[in-house]
């Protein structure tokens, strides 16, 4: 089925980041000072709940990061081409929700509607022309008489979806309880009762409830989206639900890859400035104060405009690759503008740490500077890095929306919440109002950012040494 894999720049970086996170996880699990706080995160109810929500977003984003050229079967035959591979690049996620991607309507339609949102001249079989809301090509096309059958059909589909969701989540929960019981060497019943009573160390009950909620939501929307346009369609008739789901990858990528770009600079320069002081400190301080005084938006706008000129002079294999390059540049330029904050924090902390007695003791032993930095300074600022990265994440997701809104964000052909909002701007002025694009982007962005914020609060509380004594 899948032929020729396409690895886009950002795909490569996402998997590199994943590798880094996994390696860090292995490293952290061996160090008591890093394991402890994470265990505290796992023990927090908010932490577990938001983690489940975030992992759903993550799964979508990762599925959306395997790109390939699909094999043309039907379409290929019609064209009579010899090549069986399309020039188009789609992702694994696109393959999974093929229906959503391909079922285009003519123009706007409201969520779950069966007819278009605008009146059109319809030619009746008898040759008369009436002006009415025409039926949609896909949304509710299976209904003979939408006016009477619509509601029962929606209810039926919802019920089927919810039941499927519940069954699956029950199965998953039981599987997990079996695993837990095996690990703690208890009987299945005892483990199950402990989970239900909330007597386990990690709040599995909360995790299961959130998981069940999310699974029910997934199956319910899958049932409905198969027959209708769950969140309506946009101006060119594309499914808004599909757009919103596709935007997840864009948002997450900007939130995470930017940190990958900014971390090396922030850590290296911050620690160097604090540790060596003197002229090194002066140079680094002046460079980040200078960078900080250029408005970030201006810098980003300049970079993107230059990129546009470059892109118009070059050819790309596909639209996706073109959009991907722009995303990459955006990530880099966001990284360049956002390392200063963390750098400043790390400089301050290093200034404090270098006066600590254990650094002095190491100096008294004649330990080299590089060793002091890697052995004494870096491990002791790692918690700051972690807190900063997780706090920055939601800010960056929102920044993408704002930048795309002013047209210096991701490529207009790329699905992103910013682009959805940007196009919704015009729709808001219509009468009657088209609200679903905006609402869909808001709902998806809101739940991601809220979950990320709550999660980062838990992480910060767990890692902040000043708060550690108070609980």
């Amino acid at each position, binding site marked *: 089925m899948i032929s020729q894999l396409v690895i886009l720049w950002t795909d490569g970086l996402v998997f590199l980041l994943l590798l880094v996170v996994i390696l860090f996880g292995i490293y952290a699990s061996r*160090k*008591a*000072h890093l394991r402890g706080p994470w265990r505290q995160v796992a023990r927090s109810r908010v932490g577990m709940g938001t983690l489940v929500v975030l992992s759903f977003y993550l799964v979508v984003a990762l599925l959306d990061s395997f790109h390939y050229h699909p094999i043309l079967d039907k379409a290929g035959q019609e064209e009579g081409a010899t090549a069986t591979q399309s020039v188009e690049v789609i992702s694994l996620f696109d393959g999974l929700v093929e229906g959503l991607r391909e079922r285009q309507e003519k123009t706007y339609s409201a969520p779950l509607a069966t007819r278009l949102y605008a009146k059109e001249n319809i030619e009746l079989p008898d040759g008369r022309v009436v002006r009415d809301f025409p039926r949609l090509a896909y949304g509710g096309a299976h209904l003979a008489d939408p006016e009477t059958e619509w509601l029962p059909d929606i209810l039926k589909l919802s019920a089927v979806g919810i039941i499927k969701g519940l069954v699956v989540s029950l199965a998953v929960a039981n599987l997990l309880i079996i695993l837990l019981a095996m690990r703690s060497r208890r009987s299945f019943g005892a483990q199950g009762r402990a989970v239900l009573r909330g007597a386990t160390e990690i709040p599995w009950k909360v995790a299961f409830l959130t998981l069940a909620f999310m699974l029910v939501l997934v199956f319910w929307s899958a049932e409905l989206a198969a027959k209708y346009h769950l969140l309506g369609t946009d101006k060119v008739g594309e499914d808004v639900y599909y757009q919103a789901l596709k935007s997840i990858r864009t948002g997450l990528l900007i939130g995470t890859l930017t940190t990958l770009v900014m971390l090396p600079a922030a850590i290296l320069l911050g620690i160097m400035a604090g540790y060596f002081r003197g002229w090194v400190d002066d140079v680094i301080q002046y460079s980040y104060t200078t960078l900080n005084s250029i408005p970030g938006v201006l810098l980003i706008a300049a970079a993107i405009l230059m990129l546009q000129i470059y892109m118009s002079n070059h050819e790309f294999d596909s639209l996706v690759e073109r959009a991907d390059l722009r995303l990459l540049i955006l990530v880099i330029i966001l990284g360049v503008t956002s390392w200063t904050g963390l750098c400043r924090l790390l400089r301050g902390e290093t200034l404090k740490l270098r006066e*600590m*007695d*254990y650094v*002095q*003791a*190491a*100096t*008294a*032993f*004649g*330990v*080299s500077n590089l*060793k002091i930095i890697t*052995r*004494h300074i870096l*491990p*002791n600022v790692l918690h700051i890095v972690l807190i900063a990265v997780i706090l920055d994440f939601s800010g960056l997701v929102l920044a993408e929306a704002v930048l795309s809104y002013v047209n210096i964000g991701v490529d207009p052909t790329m699905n992103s919440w910013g682009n959805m909002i940007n196009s919704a701007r015009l729709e808001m002025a219509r009468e009657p109002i088209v609200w679903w694009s905006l609402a869909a982007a808001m709902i998806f962005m809101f739940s991601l950012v809220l979950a990320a914020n709550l999660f980062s609060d838990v992480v910060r509380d767990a890692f902040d040494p000043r708060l550690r004594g*108070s609980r």
Partner: protein
Amino acid sequence: MNDTLLQVKGLKTWLGEGENPVRAVDGVDFEIRRGETFALLGESGCGKSMTALSLMRLLPPSGRIIRGEAFLGETSLFDLAERDMRRERGGRMGMIFQEPMTSLNAVRTIADQIGESVRLHDPENRSDIRSRVIELLKAVGIPDPVRRLDEYPHQLSGGMKQRVMIAMALAGRPELLIADEPTTALDVTIQAQVLALLKDLQHQTGMAVLLITHDLGVVSNVADRVAVMYAGQLIEQATTERFISSPAHPYSQKLFQSLPNSGKRGGRLAVIKGSVPKLTQDFTQCRFVDRCDQSMDICSRSEPVWREHGAGGGVRCHLEDYPGIRIDQPARPDSSETEATRALEEPLIETRDLKIHFPIHKGVFKRVVGHVKAVDGVDISIAPGRTLALVGESGCGKTTVGKGILQLVHPTGGTVKFDGEELSRLKGSALRQLRSQMQIIFQDPVASMNPRMLVGDIIAEGMQAQRIGGTAAGRRGRVLELLAHVGLPADAADLYPNEFSGGQRQRICIARALAVEPRFIVCDEPTSALDVSVQAQILNLLMDLQQEHGISYLFITHNISVVSYLAHEVAVMYLGRIVERGTVEEVLGSPAHPYTQALLSAVPVIDGDSEHEVIRLEGDMPSPANPPTGCHFHPRCPQAFDECRKAYPDSAGLSDTRKVSCFNYRS
């Protein structure tokens, strides 16, 4: 009228939830009479502060009072509604805390902060708060109170801030003043001022003072009655005279024996082995049994009960039931031992006119506008196997001298010679090689170890850097050897520093320094963060090491009794310069410089009679950025005359080993 002011019965305060709460206060009974000073004495972590906070009902969120009652006069404190309690706090009960730096709000003026107390708790003076504040400032001995009114806390020195805190506590005209380690954060000379002030105020107002402290010297100087707290319980209560002359509980006896002083020179200090038991358990035995060397069978079978021995005193010990077998205090080692004067031997470390100045930068271009003269011309020399104690108040540059010798801070001027080799000119690898010869032990054992490293790695770090010990396995063997040497089990190597108590951590630090086989160690107040019983363990260890390996110490401290116990020579430092130096007998026996005299007299002495005269120094040490002209000490010197204001006195040799910088003495 009843004579009892505060009565506490069966107080139990637990901290934390869950199955194992910390039983911080576990059944405490005592009474405080009107006008008396009642001292609550104990090691850290024994529940002293928790007792005080329970009385004030100011426990941290995780703490709660499980049982017990407390009566202030007729009022039952634990039955009051919170709003009535608020009137008692700061009203009839005042409290002052250990850390004056953090107890005041930095952005409000003195008048504001004291005025607030007056407004809340002194309705009669509400119309004229300002004059009452002036009156209070006068009462706590702040010079020029009118000018101080509109100043902010950062403009005051530590001693002044503690006075302001006392003034705030006095605003409500308290009947009971709870002082939680009021002088621990202060220098001895300032401590003497504050203790004298508390005593004066008590005479004038007739209030009672609940003094919480770990310092036996403070207790013997100011307290009327003493209660010793151990592991959440009172184990002994007596009048101060009786407590000092014949402590009843083995723990109290040990406390006295473990205090260093000149009488115990050459001998070993008594140590209390182990540390305070964890308070999360249910005790079915005597809490002190593991550390007691007079323990009997019964001690580990049942918990001793409280036995009165008259006059409000009592003790909690099984020995009370078997008076026959009580072991008397071991005789103190006699101090007849004589020391050969070895000061003239070729010195191992020698500094000449050592200067360390820190530039003060100001403005956009960071121009240097002045220098903090932390060390300003210091000459010291230490012979192999000898100990030089460097004594002085905080901020006088003691620590900087130590770091300057080790080249951790680069000297501005002068020379430092180690075994004839000039250190300040050495750079890079040449200096790095010499580093194994000189080591440092820091004051705070918590801060001096990287919390992210295993103890084994911490100790091996120096060997690795100096390429000693060969392979990793060889280093490992040496680490275990060192751990055994400082009295720690071998499995300590695979734990993190936070799993050890303060004393154990300091042992690890000593092991780390020993790993590179140094000939000279700078000990920067190595025991000042530790409890008395633990201090004795560390001092014994340091003495043993000196005898075994012939290590020289530069012992930086402000604790005179430690000096008299282990130092051979003493140098007294004031504002970056050494004002007097000589052998320990010379300097401590007959101090010559007025500053030395004042410093020594300010140290609280435990001798039962508190009649010894304290030379009270006015004010605080001036800033080293802007030292006074002439003799640095003249603004505080009781003997200053005209010449002192004009020039700094040259050092005058009083004997071969002794030098003083004072116009009273001329060579």
